[in-house]
């Protein structure tokens, strides 16, 4: 099949970017979107031009490295599928696909289709863990976890941190990502001791990074390759509200944003 790939080319954060169209003949419908880019890059390299930079690693939909907008949709038209597993049979012969990087204030631009998602690491760093040092654990079966709880925690834990939720959200919110970790750990009995602190600190960090607020639009869950349910955001808000109330000092003397409150700081 034939396709035209119209791709955002920009050498670096300080240079000017533009769309460049690349007509592609002989696209095999069995190949993945990334393999289609490989073929393009190979031909660019043979001509001595610089290949399109894009992120990828495992190419089986689990590492979360890959991702870009395809004609306005994060990861393209196929539900629950990252671009590395999106096969070209989902497109029509002769179609034009517009590829752009994730665009968000909190994801600084790097090159072509690559952005910097370290803000996600810093959100996890701010509390997305259970504080148990190696060697402290009781026997695995000493902490019973009901099957339903465990399954629900797993649904949230399946997040791959790709950033599609942020790119799809009109507000550029990271609520689905942050909520997924708060829900995963907050559902499990092991996660209870730090539940309040975790929610408050992670939400504060999310704001600190410059992500927008959630207004319940639901684009995030719609493009999520792991179909993280919107309910994780409800859980985040609930844990945040409870945590903010219980962790407040007796005097709330400020109307400053919560991220400036003492307990929200490191």
């Amino acid at each position, binding site marked *: 099949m034939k396709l035209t790939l119209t791709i955002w080319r920009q050498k670096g954060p300080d240079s000017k970017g533009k769309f460049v169209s690349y007509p592609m003949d002989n696209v095999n419908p069995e190949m993945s979107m990334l393999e289609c880019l490989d073929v393009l890059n190979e031909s660019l390299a043979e001509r*001595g031009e610089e290949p399109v930079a894009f992120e990828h690693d495992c190419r089986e939909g*689990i590492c979360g490295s890959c991702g870009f907008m395809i004609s306005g949709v994060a990861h393209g038209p196929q539900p629950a599928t990252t671009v590395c597993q999106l096969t070209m049979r989902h497109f029509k012969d002769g179609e034009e696909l517009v590829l752009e990087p994730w665009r968000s204030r909190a994801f600084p631009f790097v090159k072509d289709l690559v952005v910097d998602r370290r803000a996600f690491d810093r959100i996890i760093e701010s509390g997305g*863990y259970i504080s148990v040092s*190696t060697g402290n654990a009781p026997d695995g079966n000493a902490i019973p976890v009901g099957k339903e709880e*465990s399954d629900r925690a*797993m649904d949230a834990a399946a997040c791959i941190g790709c950033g599609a939720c942020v790119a799809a959200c009109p507000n550029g919110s990271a609520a689905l990502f942050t909520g997924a970790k708060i829900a995963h750990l907050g559902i499990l009995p092991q996660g209870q001791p730090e539940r309040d602190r975790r929610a408050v600190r992670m939400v504060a960090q999310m704001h600190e990074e410059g992500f927008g607020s959630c207004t319940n639009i639901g684009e995030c869950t719609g493009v999520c390759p792991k179909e993280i349910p919107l309910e994780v955001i409800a859980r985040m808000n609930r844990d945040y509200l409870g945590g903010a109330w219980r962790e407040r000092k007796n005097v709330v003397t400020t109307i400053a944003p919560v991220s400036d409150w003492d307990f929200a700081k490191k």
Partner: protein
Amino acid sequence: MKLDARIPSGPIEQAWDKARFDMKLVNPANKRRHTLIVVGSGLAGGSAAATLGELGYNVKCFCFQDSPRRAHSIAAQGGINAAKNYQNDGDSIYRLFYDTVKGGDFRAREANVYRLAQNSVNIIDQCVAQGVPFAREYGGSLENRSFGGAQVSRTFYARGQTGQQLLLGAYQALERQVDTGQVTMFPRSEMLDLIVIDGKARGIIVRNLITGKLSVHIADAVILATGGYGNVYYLSTNAKGSNATAIWRAYKRGALFANPCFTQIHPTCIPVSGDYQSKLTLMSESLRNDGRIWVPKQKGDKRPPDQIPEAERDYYLERRYPSFGNLVPRDVASRNAKAVCDEGRGVGETGLGVYLDFSEAIQRLGEETIRERYGNLFDMYQRITDENPYKVPMRIYPAIHYTMGGLWVDYQLQSTIPGLFVLGEANFSDHGANRLGASALMQGLSDGYFIIPYTVGNYLASTKLEKVSESSADAQAVLSSVQQGVEKLLAIPGKRTVDSFHRELGKIMWDDCGMSRNAAGLKDAIGRIRALREEFWRNLNVPGSSDDLNQSLEKAGRVADFLELGELMCLDALERNESCGGHFREEYQTPDGEAQRDDEHYSYAAAWGYTGPGNPPELNKEPLEFHYVHPSQRSYK
């Protein structure tokens, strides 16, 4: 070189206790005076960096991805073994030890494997405490399943995403240490050389993949946890970025490389569909629990599977291995798949595939149960092939998956360079010539959480370390040699792309150093690899520059190393005149086609030493002694 594995004397059950007691300790106040480098952030590197940070060391952790959470451990699907015996089905530490030594076809070091089995139970406890959502029974206890090469159910799992969940556990522990300031994380940073001063590993040279800047990092010990080298075959189940550069550069600085030819071919991957193919996708081995593997009895039978009557199907694993059936170890399952395809009985368009059929399991257990167990794998299969495995049998074929070989380490996980430790798939120690399913995750976490925190302390406490600065002449000399290497790659005035060289190397390796090997093919492959390497340095074309994100340049450096490593793998395969585990030499097989070991002559780990450019590597042998599990012909019949 005389190799001393430093295995504690006395009974194997007490070896690790004894070793730990004999180790020197670093007191808490002194720990913060030490800086340690960890390269790699997968299960081994991530767990090591987190645990060393918890102990109070200053840790610098490096990974080439944009985040430590992306390391390829994340893609492991099936599960992790542990000798918990929760199922009351006869498991024990000794049995896990026994199965692993036997599964490795008696080419692993007994004491290491025993320790691995001992640590397995602590790993599960630690991961549960971290919040890893393992599969549970309704009563709240942990669920287990069986896996290839074992007759007990000892595999813990989190749907088909066990690696992801275990890695996120380690990653979260790591981020907690980043938060406390004990660990500094360097993402998008690739190690390009090792700094050895006064015979000790003292640092690394790193390239920032965004700015292209090279920098020197000095430490008191260097820990490599950079994974395996399966991508030497171009097509493998590894991530595209997985590479051998860190361990290969360490080899060229004096660390020995052991058993490079021991590679594992995984039996259940989605078959290749075209020449644009960039990688192979694994379908977890756990599918063999409920799926039955078959091909038509007749050659060239092109009927769709549902039109081939039961009597005309050959369930070849169940027929040849009645006691293990579809659960034989990976090397056996892969070889048998190749054999039936070579006979012309393979399925699918290319004839390189066999059926993995769930219809009987769906009848017996219902589609819902199968969905529960393997839902995400079935979805993935359907996404890639556009076929519904609930209705049509899957088509699978073996693919390169794991490398048992790696840098030689002693019982303390230290390489032949003092102060250089190697963990996880990057070392050679625990899986012999074949790794059992669900054992890679176990080894990565055992090395990182429970071994290196002790052994690195012992090294620091018993070694006098001179003060070294980043600007020292030794460090700067390594830095400038790396700089020259990068410039050299960019300066080659050739025509061919990096990928075209990589594909050609991969084809040579797969054809002649893959699922089966013979002396003539290996000698021929060595000649072709040398010629290809010569062409690489003459006819490569790397577009772009060295001062920004240049993915072609990154690949060029890695492929340059693969072109050298590939030759060593062939040489090792040629030198080992026996068949064992994943190393199948066609000249050495039993009358019924099973691997024929030669314990009299080859019961050793082959540890190769670098002797300079153009010189043949030097072979050192670590004899393997089996005091507990006596070598026998492996039988899964």
